[in-house]
Each structure stands twice: as structure tokens, then as C-alpha cells.
């Protein structure tokens, strides 16, 4: 199972999200709190900096290697700033059918498309579903699929439900496109008789808004061969947490969002970035979180939770 973290808000140095918290995303790649094991298959980060040249275009760092030992990543993250980012640690099942290469590393972003996606989840028997999805994906987007992951296909599927995927994302339209895509996948699963639990925790961003889901098909219908340890039984609905507040900084030795209003930063993560989980909230199961710049204030974010009743 993968781990991701996404951020939107006041400028941060990447180190503050990727390395410095005591359970940062890089630390989670070797010591996840809410997973019993992680079979590492790559790391990627995609970050937007409003003060950079061409601020609409994120910079990208993707490697099939392990972030914990990546000196280039560490060095870069101490200097690079971001007002939005998605970072993802890829975990895979132990199978010789898994393809571990850069093409399968999240986050995914097609050329000419401002919106990127990362996923923490796994669609049951995806090879059986794949070509049923093709009818719902625009050819120009299908042609850009390079890897073998269910996540990249879901990315193309969601973009195909948006009127103009090359335009900056409208958070409401992106949220609706995500819901429609999840409904299409449900229909395809039913057609193939796929009835085992499949988590679909997604995060999408174009650097100005964030859309995230905590969702599973057929929750509670475990795979027959799912031998899982205690932490997976307790956290069997794939976890997603968030914290929002004024800015993001180190407070009394602990990284997190600050007190006060207006709320100007949000962090969404597969699991809290700190061992102390008390300053984080769980995203409800079967829910979507949408964050965007507030309309009524010069600064600040508006965040809402929507039920995914499908």
C-alpha cells in the first residue's frame, strides 16, 4: 500500500514536509505508523511555487529508488519552496507481475494538463477492467498513459470527465469528474463480478486547489488470500488524515498547521506526519475533501467535506 501527502497554502520549504516531521512521508517509507509493511517501489514529488518562473507548471522529481537514501532529494528539498505539492511513496504487493520503474511512479501529470494525481489504493484485478475503461477515456489522454498502474488509468478517466483538461482546474468540476469516474469504475466492477474490497484514496491538484477522496468499493469484503497483520485489521478502511490552520511551521518542536484565522494552509496525508496524532483529523470514510482559495477573503482557504454516496 502507498502513502501520500499533499499540501496547499502558505510557502513552505519542502524539507518541512518531506523530511523534518517525526513521521514525515520519507520516514513513513520505512516506518509507517498505520501499515504493517511497505514494499517500496518508488518515490515522486510534484511541487508548485507561486513565486517561481512559470508558476502554473510544477517541477517534478520521480525515482524508482528509495527516498530514505536519496541525497539528491534531501539536498533539493532543503532549498526548494512550494505553495502546493503532492508527494507519494509507492508501495506494491509482492508479485512478479508488478512493474517497478519510473513510469509507474506517482504523481501522474500528462503534458499540457495542469492537474496531477496520486493514489493510495488498489483496484481488484485491474487487468480485467482496464479496457472497459477505455471507452470512457479521451483518445488524446489515453495515448499519454505510459505505465501499467490502475492509478494512471484513473487519472486519465477523471480528466476525461472534465470539459477542458488543459485548463486550470475548477475544484467543483474536478470533484464532480472524480465522482463520475468512481461511478464508472463501480459499473465496470459489477460487469466483471469484482466484489472484493478495493481502496481508492486519491489526491488531485493543479497547485491552486486540492481534491482528495477516502473511498473503498465493497469495504469489508476482504480478499480471500489477504493475510494481514493487526494494524491492517484496525485500519482496514485505508486511512486519510488532514490538518488545516494558519500557515505551517514548527510549534514547540512539532511540525503542523498554526493556530488562528483565516486558515491558510491544509495538509492531507495517508497518515499523520507526526507521531502525535492529536493535532490531525481523520477524513471520514466515503468522503471527499475539497480545498480552494477562499472567495470572501484576500487570504485563506475554504475547505469542505462531501459525502461520496455511491
Amino acid at each position, binding site marked *: 500500500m502507498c502513502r501520500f501527502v499533499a499540501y496547499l497554502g502558505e510557502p513552505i520549504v519542502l524539507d518541512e514536509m518531506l523530511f523534518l516531521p517525526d513521521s514525515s512521508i520519507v520516514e513513513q517509507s520505512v516506518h509507517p505508523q498505520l501499515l504493517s509493511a511497505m514494499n517500496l517501489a518508488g518515490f515522486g514529488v510534484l511541487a508548485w511555487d507561486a513565486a517561481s518562473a512559470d508558476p502554473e507548471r510544477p517541477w517534478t522529481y520521480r525515482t524508482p529508488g528509495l527516498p530514505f537514501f536519496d541525497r539528491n532529494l534531501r539536498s533539493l528539498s532543503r532549498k526548494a519552496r512550494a505553495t502546493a505539492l503532492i508527494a507519494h511513496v509507492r508501495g506494491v504487493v509482492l508479485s512478479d507481475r508488478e512493474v517497478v520503474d519510473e513510469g509507474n511512479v506517482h504523481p501522474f501529470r500528462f503534458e499540457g494538463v495542469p492537474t496531477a494525481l496520486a493514489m493510495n489504493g488498489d483496484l481488484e484485478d485491474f487487468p480485467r477492467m482496464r479496457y472497459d475503461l477505455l471507452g470512457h477515456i479521451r483518445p488524446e489522454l489515453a495515448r499519454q498513459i505510459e505505465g501499467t498502474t490502475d492509478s494512471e488509468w484513473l487519472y486519465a478517466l477523471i480528466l476525461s470527465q472534465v470539459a477542458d483538461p488543459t485548463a486550470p482546474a475548477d475544484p467543483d468540476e474536478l470533484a464532480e469528474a472524480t465522482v463520475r469516474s468512481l461511478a464508472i469504475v463501480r459499473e465496470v466492477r459489477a460487469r466483471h463480478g469484482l466484489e472484493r474490497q478495493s481502496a481508492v484514496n486519491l489526491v488531485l491538484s493543479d497547485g491552486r486547489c486540492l481534491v482528495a477522496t477516502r473511498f473503498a468499493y*465493497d*469495504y*469489508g*469484503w*476482504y480478499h480471500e488470500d489477504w*493475510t*494481514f497483520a493487526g494494524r491492517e*485489521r*484496525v485500519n*482496514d*478502511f485505508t486511512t486519510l488524515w*488532514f*490538518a*488545516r*490552520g*494558519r500557515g505551517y511551521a514548527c*510549534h514547540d518542536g512539532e511540525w*503542523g*498547521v*498554526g*493556530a*488562528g484565522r483565516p*486558515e491558510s494552509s491544509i495538509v492531507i496525508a495517508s497518515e499523520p506526519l507526526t*507521531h*502525535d*496524532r*492529536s*493535532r*490531525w*483529523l*481523520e477524513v*471520514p*470514510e*466515503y468522503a471527499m475533501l475539497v480545498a480552494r482559495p477562499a472567495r470572501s477573503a484576500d487570504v485563506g482557504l475554504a475547505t*469542505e*467535506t462531501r*459525502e461520496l*454516496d455511491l
Partner: protein
Amino acid sequence: MSRRDDAAALLRSLPVLADLPEDEIDNLAALSEPFAVAPGEVLFEEGDPADAVFIIGSGELESIKRLPGDRALTTARLGPGTALGEMAMIAGVPRVATARAVEATSGIAVEAHAVQQLLGGANPGARELIVRIGQQALRILRSVVERTASELDQDVRASQAMRELAPASSEVTPIRPGPDEANYLSTILFFDRFSRDQLSELFDDMPRLAAPRGTELVAEGERPDALLFVLRGAVESTVHHGRAAARVRLSGPGRIVTHLGVLDDGPCPYDCRARERVVLLEAPVERLLELRERDDAAWRLFRLGVYEDAVDAIVQADRPLARMAAAGEEVRA
């Protein structure tokens, strides 16, 4: 009076310990240490290991859940004669809230392993103690659920839209357990604590039920006559207030749906609906009474598992309140 006598007197004054034999009270008193905290001082932090049970002799503590952005939710005020930490201890979970002194507060702390030793014993007082801790967990669960319902109309932003009703064709049907059910049960929560023989002895004659997504299993206000265990799929428990609603628990495999309304005196305070197609195991009240009469090792494991699950239900039921508090100003008890 010696410090040990003081501790014994305080322990004896607790309703949950009222039936313990004198020698057990003395044993606990010997293993206790006094504590004292000044106003504003923290006794323990949320997330700390539950390594001791604290009993307040005098003063007042407040129980606080921290939230993002340095906000907080005050969940309870606790006065003399209240025990803290016994539920986290039986459920094996860390402290679920921070305890901070409102005024100068003192009492005794009993190490968790001493209480656990007592609970593992066979004397009638210890058995009664765990029942009372469990009943306290159920009271707290009911109060958290009722508080969530009452807060809903104050902050509809954090509540969810009310669901559509289930299709009229949805119904609960009895099914037979599959041939490999015992293997499966031994991998899921609650059931994984029993030996194969105990699984067979406890559950073979209890009905299995199947229901499609959306089926209403228990209506708010109903008094169900059986504990429902989720074997496969998921059930959600939802409280309502006017047009607002909030899910207070999503119960997946190995979770119990109907603690409230079966194991306590009130009606079920939420409706329970199949969120996914679901297979349930039904434990009728009369069967539970039979098992209680037998009072053997399997029943004691069963009972402890039910109370552990009630503590998990409290932790889950707290989540909508925490989201409401994080969205608005501090919510006070």
C-alpha cells in the same frame, strides 16, 4: 490513618469497586501511589500509554482532546470519585484525551498491570469490576452519541446530508455459514481471540444473516433483541437531528453494531444501515444470558471483546464532534 489506608478508603468509595473483597482492595491499595496536580497542570497527555488508572480524591480535572491549529475540545469534567484510564487500559489503546487540572487535584494512581492482574483473576469482585467498567464505557458511548446529535443543528457544516431511504425490496435473509467460515473468523477482529473449539461452542448455533446495501437493520429509537456482529461488509450508525445527520460509526468485519439498546437500558440512539452488502452474526439476548450464567473462559473473552469494541466505538463517535469543534470555536462540555 496510613497512606495505604487512605488509598484503600478511596478505592472502596468507588462504585465500580464496591463489591471487591477487602483483601483485593488492600492489594490494590498497596500497589497505588498518591498523585497531586496544581491548577492548569497536565496529569497525562493524549496519546500517552495507558499505564495507570487514576482515581480522583479531591479537586477537578478536565478531559481535553487536542485539534489542529491549537484548538481543543473539552469532552468532560471529572470530580472526586471518578476513575480515569480504565477503559483505555482494557482496550489496550493509548490515552484518548489529555487530563488537565481545573483546580488543585489529588488522588491515587494504580499501575495498570496491577488492575489487569486483578481482572485476570477468578474472584467474583474482579468479574464484577470488568462488567462495571464495561457499563461505564456504554454510558460514555451513549453520552457522546447524544451530544453529537445535539450539536448537529449548531454546526451543520460538519454534518452530512441525510441519506435516501433504502429501496423497499431490501430485506434481511438468513444464510448458512460457509465451510471455511472458521478459518475466516480467526483472521478478523473480535473473533481472532478465540480457539477453534471456542468459536464453535460460542457461535455455531447463532444465526447468520445477509442484507443488501442500504438495508435498515435497526431504526433509531428501537430496542433490538440481539447483538449484531459484522462478519463481512460494513454497517454505518447514523444520528439525526432535524435535517442534519452524522455517521458516528462505520463497523467493518469483527465490529459490533448494537451495543446501545441491547447492553444498556435505553433505546438505540442511532439508525444502523448496511453501508455495503453485509453478512451478520446475530447473538440473541437470551443466548447471551445463557453464556453469562456459564461464566467460563470463553464467555469472559467474549465479554472483554464486547467492551473493547465499545471503547473503539467511543473513539469513532468522537470524530464528528472533533470535526465540528475544529470547524468552529472551542466546544465546551
